[in-house]
């Protein structure tokens, strides 16, 4: 009995590790575990079901991520895995891990801030430049190259940079 439980725990861990290794196709330094998109891995016999939560409603990366999860699990030896999308509770950038934030900054993207600044209609946001660390930055465009990012510029080092919007 104990052996079976151990085997299940070990299998589930292997499935989790495989799913957790999938990266965001648009920000390849972040895994879906870093993002907080990976919610659950359920093992039923030899069948694996992975639960993920969408980031932005229209994020086109979600389909790609679901496909990559299936491929990763099959490579890890799990036949016919399935991916389920859960809407509740809704994903928030607060779920991004510290490790994820650190990797984002190193990649040149300013990580999301705490959510209280978002509501202000014309409120000032203070975003730190991921290149030089200066807080002397300005918003260039509320919407950037993907749905999760805004375009900013650092007035100290003059570098433009992406900011992962708080959501």
């Amino acid at each position, binding site marked *: 009995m104990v052996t079976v439980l151990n085997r299940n725990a070990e299998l589930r861990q292997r499935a989790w590790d495989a799913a957790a290794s999938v990266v965001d196709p648009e920000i390849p330094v972040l895994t879906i575990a870093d993002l907080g998109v990976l919610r659950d891995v359920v093992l039923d016999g030899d069948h694996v079901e992975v639960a993920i939560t*969408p980031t*932005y*409603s*229209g*994020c*086109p990366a979600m389909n790609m991520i679901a496909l990559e999860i299936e491929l990763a699990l099959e490579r890890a030896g799990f036949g016919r895995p399935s991916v389920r999308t859960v*809407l*509740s*509770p*809704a*994903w928030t950038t607060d779920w991004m891990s510290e490790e994820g934030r650190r990797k984002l900054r190193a990649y040149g993207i300013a990580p999301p801030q705490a959510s209280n600044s*978002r*509501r202000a*209609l*014309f409120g000032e946001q203070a975003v730190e430049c991921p290149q030089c660390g200066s807080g002397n930055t300005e918003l*260039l*465009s*509320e*919407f*950037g*190259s993907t*749905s999760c990012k805004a*375009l900013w510029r650092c007035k100290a080092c003059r570098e433009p940079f992406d900011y992962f*919007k708080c*959501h």
Partner: protein
Amino acid sequence: MSVANIQVSETPQVLYALRRADDALILGHRLSEWCGHAPMLEEDMALSNIALDLIGQARELYTYAAKIEGKDNDEDKLAYLRDVRQYRNLLLVEQPNGDCAQTLVRQFFYSAFADLYWRAMMNSRDATLAAIAAKSEKESAYHLRHASEWIIRLGDGTEESHARAQAAIDYLWAFSGEMFAVDAGERSLIHAGIAIDPEGLRDRWLNTVTGVIGEATLTLPQNDWMQQGGRVGRHSEHLGHLLSELQSMQRTFPGLTW
């Protein structure tokens, strides 16, 4: 050649979801018409991003509508295989893009409502609607900020931009009242705690709108006669043209997939 329209069993709850899904899809489609045509790159990205958010919201709402309907329909059939008279969106969102001012005033009126609406819907007793609301609320806040900044920039800009923004407000104003209309079916959902009463949002909506429009040195029309019909399938001439483009692939090649 054409494909038969699907039939939808419009129970109050299915209809409720369908109306909001249609709003999001049609407005998202309108905004996507700007892709590659906006006057500057940042704006091209902004309008396309907002379109993407709205189409994403539409997908979730269609999927939900199909699930509670419990028939053979799905998000694609609901979007691609209903004709004009089966669409339930607000007249506001199907109005043509016109110039930038018209596109942004349309967005501003809608987003100022959507922002309040989705925030209130986070308390819906329906867990799926509450979850969709939690995502949409955050997106709407960005949409509203973007549109508001443009209204001020245009209104308080040049003589030309001011005149265009004012003309857009005068044209679109009569379509704003439909957002607050409620029929008997929706009233029952409001009582059940599934939907919220939009009437309760009107004062705050008007506050946001008059605040921004005042700062933009523009004025709201005095007339309060409001055009309605979209919610029951009586649309302006514009929606048919829009759908003929949106649906052309599925109508021409039934069941086409990527």
